[in-house]
Structures are given as structure tokens and as C-alpha cells.
């Protein structure tokens, strides 16, 4: 009981933010989870009410609060649509951390976030062993997306059609980069992200090709750690801090003009969360994280806003439709740049789909624990993609790309998934 009171007290720190919710219910319109389940406890209004009730000791079941909080993609759609601008994402993150520190983190998650993702060398080694071995386990899904499925691992992966691990990761292919910038030349730190490094290697290569084409010098150390969003989403603040320390070590004292990433989730984490969590390390780390945060840009935005790449008009090209990743649009406000970047390749014609900014349903570890809902949400996206008549769908976040490939593959759709940078790089 005493413990429960302590838990309530920690949640009470959120009371001011919680009271901002006027219970208007407008978040129902955009919440992918609510769209799939139709349950009030799944929409922000319901979750905020439950967190508030637990803070006020009107609700005393932390385990089911944890479950309810987990039924969420942390996509930020609710916050972007919330009339009084409730800081919903901050509340969710903090509540997850408080509840999970009470319940204890799932041992597998603890191992992954605290050990594996914070130790890039170990992670890289594990993944490079994984890549050749996966041929034994996975077989091709026989689709246009080139995914694999695994009847053998069905108990764990379910019926997922996922992209195989690249036979060689990006950092193994190109090695560590630290190019010299001559006078007047830009230098960027390139942060490929875990998926960009290990799964969507071609996308990572496309980034490097485009940066080199524009004569931008690159710094890419080989042992960058995960950006920390999976840990934070699971309520593991400590895991995030461990990973952040590794990254700050590699980035803090380096000189570069921008840090660019091809992953909307990484970009928004670095920009918005690193400074917040670096505060838990020490003052110099916080300053360093703030510096890095200011310099961090999505690669689409970098190419359009800084390098001034121009779109070309073509009405007759290959039809491509663009999916607005939540973290790109709702956290960072990046919407026009990826579209322009796609159009910078004159061979393509951009066609808009309906509900382009509706969440695709991946949501990182949400996909692992709620695969059925994830597929259900993804199906709506797939239907909109197909209805657009495009033969390529583009998204600025590898997690979305993975989700799109999974749903398209399951529907046997002959539609390819590409990052805008891949489309642009094809033209160079």
C-alpha cells in the first residue's frame, strides 16, 4: 500500500499537466489505436484520466495502467490535434517510467536496452552473426518488397513479413568516416539509426551518395549507439541514459555543422529528448546535448532547406505517394521537404493519398507487443496507398518503411517502399 502511495505521489507531479486536458475528446479523431479498438481507455483522453485517477488514488491497479499505457504508438497524433495543447507525450513518457519503475522492467527489455543497445560493439557483433544465420530460419515471402517470413519462429515473430538483416551493415560496408571539410565546405555528422545501419543499408548508402554528390563532408563513427527511443517508450529512462552517454562521447567534441539522420524517430529523439535526458548525466552533457540538438536535422529538410535541392515538375512519371511519418510531421513539422525531394527526381510523379498523415501503426515496440492491432492499423494505411494508384510508396522513417512492407507484402500488393532519399539518389 505504501508503495502505491509513493507511486501516486510521483504521478501527482504530473497533475498540472494532466489538468490541462479539458476532456473534449477531439483526440479520438486522430488516434490510430482508438481507430482500431474504439475503446476510450486507448485514446489520450482515457489514458490521461486513468493516470490522473491513479495520481489521486482513485485507481489502484498499476499493472493494468501499464497495460493501457502500452496500448499506444507514442505517435503524437493526439498532441498535435489537442485544442488546449496538453503535453501528452511528456505525460505518457513520464507515466511509463514511473509505472515501470514500480512494476519492474520486463527482463528481456532490460537486457536489450541496458546491455545490447548501449554497447554498439556487442550489438554489431550480434547482428553480424545474425545476418548469415537468418538464411536458415527465414524464407522469402515471394513479394515485391523483398521481405522474409519465418514459419519456424512463428511463436515469436508471428506472421511478420520483415526485411532481412543486411548481409553487411552500413558501417561494415563503408567503415568509419571522418572526412575533412575544406574551407566553405559543410560537414555533417551522419547518424544512420539502427534500422538504417542494419536493415535499410541501401537507404544509408543513398544518404552518403547524396551528401557526397553535394560535396558535404561526413563524420560517421562506427560505434554509434541507439538513439534511445525504444528504451524511453518502454519506460526505461536509465537505458536511454546509458545509450546517450555512448553517443555523446562520440559526438560531443567533434566539429560539424549539422547532424543529419534519415529517420524521423531518431531526429525527433535527438532534438527533443537528448537534452532532457542528458540532464540526468551532468551539466556538461546537457550543454553538449543541447548543442547537438540545435544542429540536428532530418535529411530531407537538410537537402531542401540547406542545400536548396529543387523539385522538377513531371506529370507523366512513375507514380509515388508519400506517407507522413508521425515523428517527422507531428514532432518536427517536416512535411513539404520530403515531397519536394521526391519530386527532385524527374522520373517520378507525386500523387497524394487520403489520410497521408495518419499513423501507419508501427510504433516501435508497439508492433512487437500488439502485432494484431498494428496490422489492423496498417491495413487502413495500405488501403489508402493502394487507392492512390501509386506503384511506389515513400516514407521518411525506416520504421514506417518496415510496417508498410509488412502490410503490402501480406496483401500481395505490387508496390515498392522507398525512402525519399533513395528516390532522389537514383537521379544522381
Amino acid at each position, binding site marked *: 500500500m505504501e508503495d502505491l502511495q509513493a507511486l501516486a505521489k510521483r504521478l501527482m507531479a504530473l497533475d498540472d499537466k494532466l489538468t490541462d486536458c479539458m476532456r473534449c475528446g477531439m483526440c479520438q479523431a486522430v488516434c490510430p489505436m482508438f481507430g482500431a479498438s474504439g*475503446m476510450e481507455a486507448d485514446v489520450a483522453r482515457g489514458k490521461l484520466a486513468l493516470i490522473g485517477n491513479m495520481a489521486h488514488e482513485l485507481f489502484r491497479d498499476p499493472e493494468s495502467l501499464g497495460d493501457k499505457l502500452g496500448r499506444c504508438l507514442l505517435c503524437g497524433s493526439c498532441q498535435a490535434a489537442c*485544442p*488546449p495543447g496538453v503535453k501528452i507525450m511528456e505525460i505518457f513518457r513520464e507515466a511509463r517510467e514511473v509505472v515501470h519503475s514500480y512494476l519492474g522492467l520486463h527482463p528481456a527489455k532490460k537486457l536489450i536496452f541496458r546491455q545490447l543497445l548501449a554497447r554498439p560493439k556487442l550489438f554489431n557483433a550480434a547482428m553480424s552473426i545474425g545476418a548469415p544465420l537468418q538464411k536458415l530460419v527465414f524464407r522469402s515471402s515471394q513479394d515485391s518488397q523483398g521481405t522474409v517470413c519465418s514459419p519456424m519462429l512463428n511463436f515469436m515473430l508471428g506472421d511478420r513479413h520483415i526485411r532481412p538483416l543486411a548481409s553487411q551493415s552500413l558501417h561494415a560496408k563503408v567503415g568509419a568516416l571522418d572526412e575533412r571539410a575544406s574551407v566553405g565546405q559543410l560537414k555533417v555528422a551522419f547518424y544512420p539509426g539502427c534500422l538504417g545501419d542494419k536493415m535499410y543499408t541501401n537507404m544509408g548508402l543513398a544518404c552518403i551518395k547524396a551528401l557526397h554528390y553535394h560535396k558535404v563532408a561526413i563524420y560517421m563513427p562506427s560505434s554509434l549507439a541507439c538513439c534511445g527511443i525504444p528504451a524511453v517508450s518502454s519506460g526505461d529512462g536509465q537505458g536511454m541514459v546509458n545509450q546517450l552517454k555512448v553517443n555523446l562521447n562520440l559526438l560531443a567534441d567533434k566539429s560539424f555543422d549539422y547532424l543529419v539522420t534519415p529517420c524521423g524517430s531518431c531526429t525527433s529523439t535527438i532534438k527533443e529528448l537528448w537534452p532532457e535526458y542528458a540532464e540526468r548525466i551532468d551539466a556538461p552533457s546537457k550543454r553538449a546535448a543541447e548543442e547537438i540538438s540545435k544542429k540536428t536535422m532530418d535529411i530531407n529538410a537538410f537537402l531542401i532547406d540547406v542545400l536548396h535541392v529543387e523539385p522538377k515538375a513531371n506529370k507523366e512519371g512513375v507514380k509515388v505517394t508519400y506517407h507522413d511519418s508521425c515523428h517527422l510531421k507531428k514532432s518536427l513539422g517536416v512535411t513539404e521537404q520530403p515531397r519536394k525531394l521526391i519530386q527532385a527526381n524527374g522520373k517520378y510523379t507525386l500523387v497524394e493519398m487520403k489520410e497521408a498523415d495518419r499513423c501507419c501503426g508501427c510504433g516501435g515496440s508497439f508492433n512487437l507487443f500488439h502485432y494484431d492491432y498494428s496490422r489492423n492499423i496498417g491495413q487502413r494505411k495500405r488501403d489508402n496507398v493502394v487507392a492512390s494508384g501509386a506503384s511506389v510508396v515513400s516514407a521518411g522513417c525506416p520504421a514506417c518503411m518496415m510496417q508498410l512492407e509488412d502490410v503490402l507484402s501480406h496483401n500481395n500488393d505490387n508496390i515498392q517502399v522507398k525512402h525519399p532519399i533513395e528516390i532522389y539518389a537514383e537521379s544522381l
Partner: protein
Amino acid sequence: MVSQGLISDFERMLGKENVFSSEADLQSYSYDSAVLEPVIPSLVVRPTTTEKLGECVKKLYDNGIPMTVRGAGTNLSGGTIPDRSETVVILTNGLNHILEINSNDLYAVVEPGVITAQFAQAVAEKKLFYPPDPGSQAVSTIGGNIAENAGGLRGLKYGVTKDYVMGVEFFDATGEIVKTGSRTVKCVTGYNLAGMLIQSEGTLGVISKAILKLIPPPKASRAMMAVFDDMQNAAEAVAGIIAAHVLPCTLEFLDNNTIVRVDDFTHSGLPREAGAILLIEVDGHPAQVEDDALAVERVLKENKASAVHIPKDAAEKFKLWEARRMALPVLARCRPTTVLEDATVPRSQIPAMMKAVNEIAAKYKVEVGTFGHAGDGNLHPTFLCDKRNKEEFHRVEMAIDEMFDVAIKLQGTLSGEHGIGTAKSKWMEKETSRGTILFSQRLRRALDPKGLLNPTKLVGI
């Protein structure tokens, strides 16, 4: 409390996935958008066919359990807050099919859980128009709109929800199906029970289907924004526009406090000294729109508008309309608690009502920003406070009491569109009469002898 046996019965009837009994789920159906105390229900059920909806109602009636129907739960008067802890909440969001959109006969048939904006969109794709557009349309349900007789921005010219209901099917308290109205423009078969169900707030029956009128969309429109030094001139301009026989589809206003608050937030250069802003839009046949726009502009100038802005294109209109779109969000950000009222007076009484609202706010030292539908006399005085501060919240409640007194004195009404629920039931008699309350209660008792349909709402049973 409902028995385990009853829960199992419902699970068999609806499937386990449509019966919610966990504490966490029950707590999430204890509130709606009204600033009122929550009440936790004993069970929540979600029928997915209209037949099952009827079976649910019958089962609850047979077992003597009170029931509250819930659409999106966005009403602002407590209509979906359970009456007691025994209450079972019936959700309609499993009944969300548009059954027919008939372009030849200009009607649509829908289930009650269809979302207003999605319906309007589907209708627009067929090149037709469903005008009622409450501010909550992105989430509100047609069932909730009918049960509250929801209005919106287009009320002056196009009317409100009741003007588009051609017929409904509903289950009475005992679970018997009642059919009223039809797909025809004219229908006098029996009592106008559809009319009775409109704005009944879940107290007379559970709507299972609605036949809605559609109209051809206007071919053209023109928007304008006018700035006034004082509210009186703005109100005279409104009267002048109507006297000139122009019925704008939108005629909205913002008061000074709202203008200043919005400008603080958006820095969009709104006229901070202005007493009021009017946003006007006329629509219809292109030639008529042309004439109407000229007439409106003339009236605005005659009534001392200090500036009139006419946007050149959709993008500019979108910018001008930002002030109205942002009114509620910005006011809601000022303080933790936002009490959104909807006192309504005859159009000509807007200046008197506005003066009273501001004086009352000063008297009770509470902050209020007012915007609303000037063409309908429908004001949204929005009280900003922190309900955790009991003393402050009490002052807000007193201010609201006094505001209703004024609205009634000015021959207006307590509620233009948000409904009575439990929030405003205590003022009902003041606006109407003792007889009205008794009549309504007798009606309810005759139709619902056990008193189970949303029992404490509206007039109480």
C-alpha cells in the same frame, strides 16, 4: 452492481471483445466533456448490430438496470455521465455504417455511431451537402447530434440537426422497435415521434437508425472579416445584414478579450483594440453571391466597421478564419479549466448580453472570453479558471447562474446547442414553467415505467 451471470450473458450475446468490465475500462466511461464529477458505471457494452442494440436495451430493462447511451462522449452537459454506479453504458461506436446515400432522392440512411465529419465527407464525395457542422464534428456521432440537436457555424442559413432529420428508428425503454418518419419529403403517418426524439438526450429511446436530408451544395461562396471599435456597432451590422435580406451561411464574432488572447498566442497581428470582429461568409449561386457580398460590404461600412478585409483566395480566407478556429484552443490554454457555455439570446440582444457577461465577470472576478454565432444570437462565453481552486470555481458557478438569469430576462435560452443533461437541469423551470417539467416527467414515466433511460438527465424521471 451487475451480476457475473449478466456479464456472461452479454459476453455470449456480443462477444467478449464488446463487453468491458475491468476497473480501468469502467473508469474511462465515467466522464464526458462537461466539467462535472465523474460516475463509474458497472458495465460497458458495445453492440455491433442494431438487432443486438435492441437486445441489450431489453435485457437491461428486464433486469431493472439503468442505462446511458454514449456516442463520442463529447456533449458538454453531462448527458453521458452514468446516473448511478449500477448504470450500464451502451456504446454506439460499433454501429458506424452509412447504409445508403441516395443522390436521386437526396437522403441518407445511417447507423447512430457514424461520425459526423466522415458522413459529411462521404456525402460531399457524392456531390451533395449535409450542413450541420458542430465544432466537434471530427469525432461526434450522428446519434449524439440528434439526441442533442447539435448546431454549428451554419445554423443561421442552413438550420441545425433537427432540420435534417427525416425519420428515425429507435428502441423504446423496453427494447421494442419504433419507426417514425420516412424517406419521403412528406410523411404524416402517425405522431412525429422523430421530432420527439430530437434533443431527447437519451431519455426517451435509443436511436438505432436515422434518415437524414441532403441538399445540393452551394456553387460559390465569398468570405469577409470586419473590425469594429465596439460591440454595439457589430451587432447593428448583423441586424443590418439581415434587414438587407442577406442570409450569410456564417456570421461569427469574437470579443475583445478573445481577440487579445488569440493575438498573444498567434502573433498574427489581429486588431487588439477592436471591440469585436465579425467573420462573414455568403454562399449560393455565383451571381447571387456577388450581389450579397456587395450588400454585406455596404452594411458593414454603414455601421462603422473600421476595416473590412476580403480574402482573395482560399489560402487568405484560411488565414483570416484562423482567429475563429483558434478562439477555443487559445482560451483553453490560458487556465487549467475551461467552462464552455452557450447561452443564446435574440440577435438584437447580443450587445446587452455581452455587456452583462462582462459586468458579471468583473463582479465575480472571473475571466471570460466570448465568441460565437452572431447570426443566431448564440454566444459561447468561455470561463477560464482552475477547478481545483474551490473558492474560484464557486465564483465561476455563481457568475454562470447570474448569466443565465440575464439570458432568460432577455428572452433568450439557457442552451442554444449544448443541451441540459444534469449540468443545467436546475434552471429548466425558470426558463419554461412548472407545467413543462411535470408534462415532461409524465411523458417519461409513461414511456419508461421503470425509469431506466438516463434517469437523472434533462428533467429527471
